[in-house]
């Protein structure tokens, strides 16, 4: 004799089913098949609440699993670091998922994952080649001077990258490793790509850090003084506005003043008429017009 739609039976069945929610639906329903009829019969026969007769639905489900040789609910209860991180991120993720269009966007990004795996492999190759070459290895990365080696490296990097991507869900350690790889590859790519320390080589000679700089950007290595008549002067001592001897780089003959101090500010350094090697002489220098009375800072009338 069975009682149709006994609410106590329905509630008990619902709670047992909930305690089996981690099983595949087919297994669960097969396990529960016929249970409703049996519970109803038990109720009809003995009366009283099912929990008094059978214990809590959770305990019932646990005994059912144990006898059926199924693992306990959530077989691995210890809380891992991954669980804690997931738990901490859950509210944020749920809020993100609540945005309109979040679902399609997430699916779209999910579909792009394989493309990112290949891109990551390329970036890793590029970074390695850039480090090896101390410079921009080009769009098709060359390892040393070999395009083939670069391509082989690229193929290997893609294999590793895809493997990492496919293992993503396997273990928390793999996820941590993947994130680390991503951070390292992307930051190294940025360092090599944007803050390219080799760019200067392509934009002209090194800018000197100190000393006099000629208008074309190169260091001043010689000074040729001429007098008001346009005649070259020798052994001219130059000082700056602070009274410091004005020195330019380069080798110069050792000179001393009468007081014994070294004279490193004597010009021209090489008084020979031809000048230093590679030096460009100014040619004939025209005499000066007489200085007009007035401010020394206004050379033109």
């Amino acid at each position, binding site marked *: 004799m*069975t*009682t*149709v739609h006994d609410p106590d039976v329905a509630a008990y069945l619902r709670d047992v089913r909930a305690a089996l929610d981690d099983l595949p639906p087919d297994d669960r329903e097969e*396990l529960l098949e*016929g249970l409703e*009829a*049996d519970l109803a019969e038990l109720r009809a026969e003995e009366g009283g609440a099912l929990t008094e007769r*059978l214990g809590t639905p959770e305990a019932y489900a646990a005994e059912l699993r144990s*006898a*059926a040789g199924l693992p306990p609910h959530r077989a691995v209860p210890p809380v891992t670091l991954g669980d804690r991180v997931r738990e901490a991120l859950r509210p944020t993720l749920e809020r993100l998922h609540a945005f309109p269009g979040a679902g399609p966007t997430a699916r779209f990004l999910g579909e792009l994952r394989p493309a990112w795996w290949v891109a990551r492999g390329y970036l890793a190759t590029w970074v390695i080649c850039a480090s090896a070459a101390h410079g921009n290895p080009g769009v098709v990365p060359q390892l040393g001077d070999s395009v083939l080696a670069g391509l082989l490296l690229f193929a290997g990097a893609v294999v590793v990258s895809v493997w990492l991507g496919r293992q993503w869900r396997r273990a928390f350690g793999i996820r941590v490793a993947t994130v680390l790889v991503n951070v390292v590859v992307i930051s190294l790519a940025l360092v090599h790509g944007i803050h390219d320390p080799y760019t200067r080589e392509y934009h002209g000679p090194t800018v000197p850090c100190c000393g006099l700089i000629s208008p074309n950007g190169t260091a001043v290595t010689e000074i040729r003084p001429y007098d008001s008549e346009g005649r070259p002067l020798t052994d001219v001592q130059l000082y700056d506005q602070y009274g410091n001897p004005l020195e330019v780089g380069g080798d110069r003959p050792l000179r001393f003043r009468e007081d014994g101090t070294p004279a490193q500010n004597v010009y021209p350094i090489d008084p020979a008429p031809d000048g230093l090697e590679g030096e460009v002489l100014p040619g004939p220098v025209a005499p000066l017009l007489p200085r007009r009375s007035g401010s020394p800072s206004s050379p033109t009338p």
Partner: protein
Amino acid sequence: MDTTQLLKGVLDLAVLAVVRDVDGYGYDIVRRLRAAGLADVGEASVYGTLRRLYQNGALSAYVVPSEEGPHRKYYGINDTGRKQLESSTTTWRAFATTLDGLLTHPDREALA
């Protein structure tokens, strides 16, 4: 002695024994076991055992629709189940005889 612990080891055998001649549904089988003297047997343990024996191929199962309520699921023994019942019976008898002997003549067993 807690008979529930003892039952765990022999529940397969007990369940196979009570369906040897007549098929039964879960609660029906629980009733038969209790009537046979296994008063402590738990419903969930029996249901779980039925499911496992079915999965292992020792029992066949079929659903009988009911006009007045939910369907019943009947279990019946098959050839695999009969073989298992036979070999388990042999094992159990040897075990029970050994333990009986131990309990009756503990000294002889210890000296042997």
